[in-house]
């Protein structure tokens, strides 16, 4: 007979061990999935997790890609984690990411082709502001009308996608190339280009921003009253009110921070690796960042590691599509499995599984 016992204190060991265990289980289950697709599982797993970094043939291309893919994930996840700790669930980072990109690109396209050092900083501010604004919709609806921020933020992703398509086909379309959707290529507009800072590393301003965000988030969560209030509200809402925390204020702050960071990530992407406002610009970073936040245990440092890992699966997934003709959806299944195993394993952080004999239910 299997019995579950609630632990007196959550197990520290499993808190740290579970993410690693989840990765291992994902590799095994993913391997089985690949085998059922008729691919060699060992090759596929190696291609996804090891080759992007260690392969001699494509390492030089894919290594810089690692930071390019991970930076937006980390930037978004750091913001989401703050809200998640307070039990405020922003599921719509993808939408805030898109709107941030549109605001950033909008500033660039408005100034085109003028040069000026101030254009890029303005784009940064606009990107953050765009994401912030988009996140304020669920925040204000929640504080005013008590709507559910999970639903509202999620549904606004689809609204943002429609706006993105409309912009790519209409207002922001490149007027110089008739008939093609998509804006001007910002990589060809020097004042707006988020270029690689150190050649061959993939480091662009988004990576720097992610690093700064991680440090700020860490300091805020451990040393600042706001971080204390976030944790209080998440763990004991009544104690938080006793401690003078205003729940409405916290909703606005948490959604605001995560929205602004997601907007920033979108802006750095559209002005750099992405290059232009296109219909297919959004690549799911906003959703994958949810996995990153949980896999990183909502801890800024853990999020860096988890962001790098999930960034790796993006590159590995592309390699798998190229080399083994793996379906593109396979990598999303893969990422989903990771979250699934992690949440399942987390059960044993709070509960102990006991095998007993002859006990009655």
């Amino acid at each position, binding site marked *: 007979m299997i019995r579950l016992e609630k632990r007196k204190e959550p197990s520290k060991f499993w808190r740290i061990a579970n993410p690693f265990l989840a990765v291992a289980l994902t590799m095994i289950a993913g391997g089985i999935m690949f085998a059922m697709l008729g691919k060699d599982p060992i090759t596929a797993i190696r291609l996804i997790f090891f080759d992007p970094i260690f392969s001699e043939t494509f390492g030089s291309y894919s290594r810089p890609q690692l930071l390019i893919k991970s930076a937006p994930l980390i930037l978004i996840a750091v913001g989401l984690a703050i809200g998640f700790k307070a039990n405020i669930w922003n599921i719509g980072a993808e939408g805030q990411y898109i709107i941030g990109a549109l605001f950033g690109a909008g500033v660039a396209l408005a100034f085109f082709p003028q040069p000026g050092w101030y254009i890029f900083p303005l784009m940064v501010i606009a990107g953050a502001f765009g994401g912030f604004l988009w996140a304020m919709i669920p925040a204000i609806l929640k504080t005013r009308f008590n709507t559910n921020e999970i639903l509202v933020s999620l549904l606004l992703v689809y609204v943002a996608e429609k706006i993105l398509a409309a912009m790519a086909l209409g207002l922001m379309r490149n007027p110089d190339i008739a008939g093609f959707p998509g804006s001007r290529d910002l990589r060809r507009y020097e004042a707006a280009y988020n270029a690689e800072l150190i050649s061959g590393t993939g480091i662009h301003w988004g990576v720097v921003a992610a690093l700064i965000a991680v440090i700020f988030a860490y300091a805020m969560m451990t040393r600042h*009253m706001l971080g204390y209030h976030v944790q*209080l509200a998440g*763990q004991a809402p*009544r104690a938080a009110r006793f*401690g*003078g925390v205003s729940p409405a204020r916290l909703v606005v702050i948490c959604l605001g921070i995560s929205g602004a960071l997601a907007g920033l990530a979108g802006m750095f992407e559209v002005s750099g690796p992405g290059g232009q406002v296109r219909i297919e610009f959004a690549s799911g970073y906003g959703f994958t960042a949810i996995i990153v936040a949980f896999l990183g245990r909502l801890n800024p440092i853990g999020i860096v590691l988890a962001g790098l890992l999930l960034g790796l699966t993006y590159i590995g997934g592309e390699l798998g599509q190229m080399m083994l003709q793996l379906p593109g959806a396979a990598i999303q299944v893969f990422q989903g499995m990771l979250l699934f195993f992690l949440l399942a394993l987390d059960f044993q952080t709070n509960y102990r599984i006991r095998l007993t004999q002859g006990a009655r239910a």
Partner: protein
Amino acid sequence: MRQPLLRLDGLTKAYPGVLANDNVSFEIGIGQMHALLGENGAGKSTLVKMIYGLVKPDKGQMVLRDLPYAPAQPSEARKNGVAMVFQHFSLFDALDVAENVALGMENPPAMRDLAKRIRDVSEEYGLPLDPNRLVGDLSAGERQRVEIVRCLLQDPKLLIMDEPTSVLTPQEVEILFRTLRQLSSEGTAILYISHKLEEIRALCDEATILRGGKKVATCDPREKSARELAELMVGQILTPPERAAKPRGDVLLSVENLSLKSNNPFGTSLKDISFQLHAGEVLGIAGVAGNGQDELLLMLSGEIPSPSGQVKLKSQPIGQLGPNARRVRGLVTAPEERLGHAAAPDMSLTANALLSGAARKGLVKNGFIDWKKTDTFAREIIAKFDVRTPGSHVLARALSGGNLQKFVIGREIELAPDVIVVNQPTWGVDASAAAFIRQALLDLASAGAGVLVISQDLDELLEVADSFAALNEGRLTPVRPAKGLTVEEIGLMMGGAHDMHPAHEVAE
């Protein structure tokens, strides 16, 4: 000597780190009213949980009506005629009385039959109860009747009652006692758990006293004085708290004609509350649980805002201010619920010291927390209030209820407030710690602070309070001097016996 019903023989139960029961043996006779006395942590609950089949003893046997008795679960205990009324009710607010009773039965009869049986039993035992009423609308006393009737429907031979009077007015207690005496005369034994000595002396014919998991005595409580029983229970001589007599000072806190809707659908709204609290005064507010105590505390702490001008601290309106703004101005509070309200369960004691300390102790600079200073503050509380814990890094939920209470009250007292409001300051705290907390509150008053104690423990209020008022369905009685009040008068202030007298008269 009565014929024995249940014999306990050398019952022992150990939990990691504590021996909850150590070789406990005694007998309960058929129809006997047997008291089980002891402080918090003496092992009373573990013992009755073993009798009720919730916990398995490590060693020892039980014999019920000459047959070995080892229930593996409560349903088996109930089949053998053992029933229990818990201190905390397991009732659903949104269901009616009959539905609640049915949920607790093994094979509930059809609802209509059940309703009739509930009426019959409640009339027979003088416990009026309407099976169709929603439990959420019942008073605490009525809820307890639901639990008792649920037990009586199973025709028990042994009824275990855990602290049954803590939620009752003195008049309601009298009615409960009549029911219990009637049951006893019909042959149902009652195991009565309490730490209220006068009650036990009035009701029981035998008492078993536990201390530190061991049985220290079995005696006839009617032959001992309450003081003798208390000293057996605590194992030391108790000194009542002392207070220096001094004139009353200025008004520190005043509330005028305040009505406030509860933020909880099953809560009690405050109706036209008025009182004044002076410097150096201890104002005791009595009342049965659920008569507006929580709402009164939330209103004073600032967690529920109130119309400006009706609540004043040192003549300044504070109704619209939040908890921290009130703390800065000198008003601190300690809510009843320690875990989850007065303290965050999954945070360390240091982090919990910051919860209310942030506003008054200079622990935060420019929004950044001085953890070193906060930890020093937490250690001060732990040392001064004798909080038993390995250190300030321990999570609040790892502390026993009494220890956490000492920490919470200690934290608020250490903030050196002008006015302190506490709800149930010694609930679940052992006698010596309770005496310590009361003394600390009295010292605060002697130093010129205003102290407002909300409590359901009348003995406590009579011990500390200079003036006295009672909450009854959200209304506060006029404040009276505590000196010279009788328990009878207090009972009437608390609302007498919440419309429960008639049935007994009818039944008799």
